[in-house]
């Protein structure tokens, strides 16, 4: 004997076209003998048609490119973490005592010490790392971000192409901000010049967009 939940399950499978030919024939015979089930089937069929009519088959993910880039960054970070863990595990399994028996240990140790000293001197006299860009997202589809590293300039470059030019008649006024105070309670940042005078206050409006008050 079929329970109501079995009937519902069959009904959904019938609506979705998942039944075999035999199952469909059997179920449609059941529908003819059960007016209540037939009414429910008709109601669900109409609801399904209505949903198909009003909703698109595929919904676009909002800001898909940014979403994808964030996922790629996370995956890259996870891969890096796993690789580091593997390196650590491999290093820990190596026996220190087996190295001590090596005849060339003294020479290798001296070379390593020399390299270490040279490295220390080099790191003190140069920058220890290069800045990198992991991901970019431009809300305006007309704007394209291009990232590259310039060895000549020793800088990382983020080039924004497709930006609307600033009108030539617009006067760009620069600030010289010496320090800033942030007030978390009212979500404002006050900018001061070197004399302690307030230059501007940065706050955000209801949309979360920054506003500068002078």
């Amino acid at each position, binding site marked *: 004997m079929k329970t109501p939940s079995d009937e519902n399950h069959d009904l959904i499978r019938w609506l979705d076209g998942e039944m075999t030919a035999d199952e469909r024939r059997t179920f449609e015979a059941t529908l003819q003998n059960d007016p209540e089930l037939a009414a429910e089937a008709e109601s669900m069929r109409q609801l399904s048609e209505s949903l198909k009519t009003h909703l698109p088959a595929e919904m676009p993910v909002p800001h898909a490119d*940014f979403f994808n880039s*964030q996922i790629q*960054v996370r995956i890259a970070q996870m891969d890096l973490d796993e690789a580091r863990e593997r390196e650590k595990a491999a290093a820990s399994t190596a026996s220190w005592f087996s190295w001590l028996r090596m005849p060339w240990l003294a020479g290798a140790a001296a070379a390593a010490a020399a390299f270490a000293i040279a490295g220390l001197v080099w790191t003190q006299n*140069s*920058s*220890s*790392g*290069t*800045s*990198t*860009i*992991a*991901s*970019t*997202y*431009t*809300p*305006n589809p007309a*704007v394209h*971000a291009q990232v590259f590293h*310039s060895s*000549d*300039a*020793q*800088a*990382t*470059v*983020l*080039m*924004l*192409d497709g*930006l*609307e*030019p*600033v009108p*030539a008649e*617009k006067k*760009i*006024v*620069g*600030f*010289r*901000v*010496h*320090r*800033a*105070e*942030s007030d*978390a309670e009212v979500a404002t*940042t006050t*900018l001061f010049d070197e004399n302690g005078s307030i230059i*501007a206050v*940065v706050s955000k409006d209801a949309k979360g*967009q*920054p*506003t*500068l008050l*002078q």
Partner: protein
Amino acid sequence: MMNEEFRMTKEYPIPKSEVHPRKAWLRAWCFLILSSFLILNSSFCPAQQPAPVPAKKPATDGKVWGALVYATTDAAKLTGSSEKAPENQKDLFGRLGKVFMPYTHFEIIGQHVQDVFREYESWVVPSRDLFLKIDSKGPAPDGGMNLHLQVWREQQVLVKTDAVLHPGSPLFIGGPKWRDGQLLFVLDLAKK
């Protein structure tokens, strides 16, 4: 007579503690004047106010220097800004020239030294026209810092990016064209 007095006393006893109505009015006025004086005194006398709580400085992860730079091919087209690059950025214009060709002349329009707050957003605002929002994502190896950056042009965000900044390895951002040249944004992490 005695009987009448006795009867009145018994029927209308006046308790000893009851105050005459005129005295009650006087007492109410005195209370009102005294309380008004106390309120006024507490409002205007600074010695009575509690000491202000000193503002707690938020934790920081580092410090950045940001600048808005105007690049052009013609020295006569410079705006005449008097802003000077800091000592550790003396070769900035030479480095910019290697990236942003064909521009040969550069000038700093505005600059901003900013703490990167650990828990709050930080703003680098060398100009009200082009500025930067920074969210710290914590330290990176070799003295670097993981940052989420947003470049804003007034109320429009131009780009959002995740970056790892290292001291001495600045980030150059090529911004919009302006007049005969281009506006550039420079962001550099200060050494600790």
